[in-house]
């Protein structure tokens, strides 16, 4: 079994005149937590969308478990073992939390249409098995209280957790988390950090995440990739990347800029 789960090779995508992602290459090892950071507009979510096959790269390719993703249709990505959460929550609003998670088990469904129509014994068994699996996820994330609540009535913090739960229900090998802590308060963010660590150590799932909260990034990440304007800036451990001069310039502006400000004042 290869150590490299996901590899992007010279990935580029162009939307009209905008080069959103430019020659981005990186590798994600099995079992690690790999984070993409960068200012807004850096292309991080675009990379996610390229992995989920919502977009097609204009150059370069992505390999997952050794297989190139370029021809894979979007609905087949989950079957390969990749699950994702969305930056602006994309839950099924008019269904309950439980139903959302049950939908997450869709890739594992083996029952055919006609047997479902008759709801045979095997379909019944499959439903029970699905329910048991989903309950494991609910236990893992403490969502018991919200099982039967319609998503439309849930507060934002809970919805983020449900989004995570739904992705976990697919039993992925690779979990893409798009800004898991955005909109969460301190307490919820630290809960999220613990969950990511549990996902990595207890469930053995590889996590690829986009994040802005640097304390969360430092706490859970094994390696960090910094991007800016569609290009790779730096790659390394959280400490290394945070100390990198190019990264500091992208986030804070360079020393020269500060000096010029002083002169004017």
């Amino acid at each position, binding site marked *: 079994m290869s150590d490299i789960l996901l590899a992007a090779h010279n990935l580029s995508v162009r939307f009209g005149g905008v080069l959103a992602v430019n020659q981005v290459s990186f590798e994600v090892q099995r079992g690690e937590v790999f984070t993409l950071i960068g200012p807004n507009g850096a292309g991080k979510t675009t990379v996610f969308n390229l992995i*989920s096959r*919502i977009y097609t790269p204009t150059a370069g390719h992505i390999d997952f478990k050794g297989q190139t993703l370029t021809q894979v*249709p*979007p*609905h*087949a*990505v*989950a*079957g390969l073992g990749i*699950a*994702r959460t*969305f930056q602006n929550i*994309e*839950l*099924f*609003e*008019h*269904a309950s939390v*439980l*139903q959302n998670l*049950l*939908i*997450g*088990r*869709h*890739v594992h*469904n083996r*029952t055919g*249409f006609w047997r*479902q*129509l*008759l*709801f045979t014994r095997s*379909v*019944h068994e499959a*439903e*029970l098995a*699905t*329910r*048991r699996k989903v309950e494991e996820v609910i236990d893992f994330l403490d969502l018991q209280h919200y099982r039967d609540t319609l998503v*439309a*009535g849930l507060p934002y913090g809970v919805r983020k957790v449900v989004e995570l739960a*739904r992705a976990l229900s*697919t039993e992925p090998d690779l979990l893409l988390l798009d800004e898991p802590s955005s909109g969460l308060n301190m307490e919820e963010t630290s809960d999220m950090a613990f969950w990511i660590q549990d996902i990595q150590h207890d469930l053995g799932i590889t996590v690829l995440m986009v994040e802005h909260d640097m304390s969360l990034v430092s706490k859970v990440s094994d390696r960090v990739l910094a991007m800016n304007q569609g290009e790779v800036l730096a790659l390394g451990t959280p400490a290394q990347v945070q100390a990198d001069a190019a990264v500091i310039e992208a986030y804070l502006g360079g020393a020269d800029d500060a000096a010029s400000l002083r002169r004017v004042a």
Partner: protein
Amino acid sequence: MRFIFKTDYDQDIRIFKHGGHVFWYGLLLAFLVAAPWLIEDYWLAQMTFVMIYGVVGLGLMVLAGYTGLFSMGHAAFLGVGAYTEAVLAAKGWPFPVSLAVAAGLSAAVGAVVGLPALRVKGIYLGIATLSFGFIVEEGLARWDSVTGGNAGMHVKAINLFGLDTSSNEGFYGVCLVVTVLSTLAVINLLRSPTGRAFVAIRDSEISAQSMGIHLARFKTLSFMISAALAGVGGALYAHKLQFISPDQFNILQSVDLLLLVVIGGLGSVHGAFFGAIFLITMPQLISLGKDFLPAFIGQAPGLQGLVYGLVLIAFVMFEPMGLYGRWLKIRTWIQLFPFYRKGMFKRQKSFQKSDRLK
């Protein structure tokens, strides 16, 4: 509200969630079976109509209420089923076979009509299905070698292995069996992965895709199921009326079907039947009410349209959950009496968000 203490996952998977359900639905079924001996012919015939429209409504409910795909030309499938049955019955084919063929042919047409659904959404899909509705209606009228064209076509009685079903009671029995089987099939589908996939497509296509749901496949499946049910209903419709013509399957019939699902309660199986009851009893109520209104209102030909329009507007404005929603509220009020709180079913005020960016 009855609080169900759940001890088993089966309670969520079963059709009947608790003993009360079994009791009431059992009672309903007993009444329906005994009806030919309990109620007079005229009302039996009306109930037959309710069941026929209920089956068609089920189909549209699956498509529009559960998958979120709006078909504004659904009468086309009704027509395909009706004419297929009429033609095959004339050839002497046994009823179960002709029914299956009618369903199958409607499903095939449904798959074709569903093709635009794979590319366009929302109002565009509505207009595409509307267009198909007109084309099929015209096709039925032009293809007179088979359908008899605008002159219409007589329909022979049901050929059920020699059993006499030409009587009111016999036909009622056939409809009852078909209706119960169809309803069970739809309920089964809705509580299994396919039904959940439909709901996922309705609520968020992009995340449905990321959960592994093949959009094209399930949208086509939804169209096919919906069309097949409409075809089955159409076959029964043909035998009920004993005479069909293309203008019975026009835009007004399609709008009637939409009225059925909206007024019945979008997104529920009960809604299909509540809507069917509405559609069949409304004209009766209007006839009854005519005598109490001044002549220029009561005798106007447009009265039925006016009443339908007003009822539709009233439901969309005041009871968006439809008749089934209103029934749920009443039932909750009765169960909680006198502790029913006014805001229990209040929806959160929502602002309009652009459908183009969905």
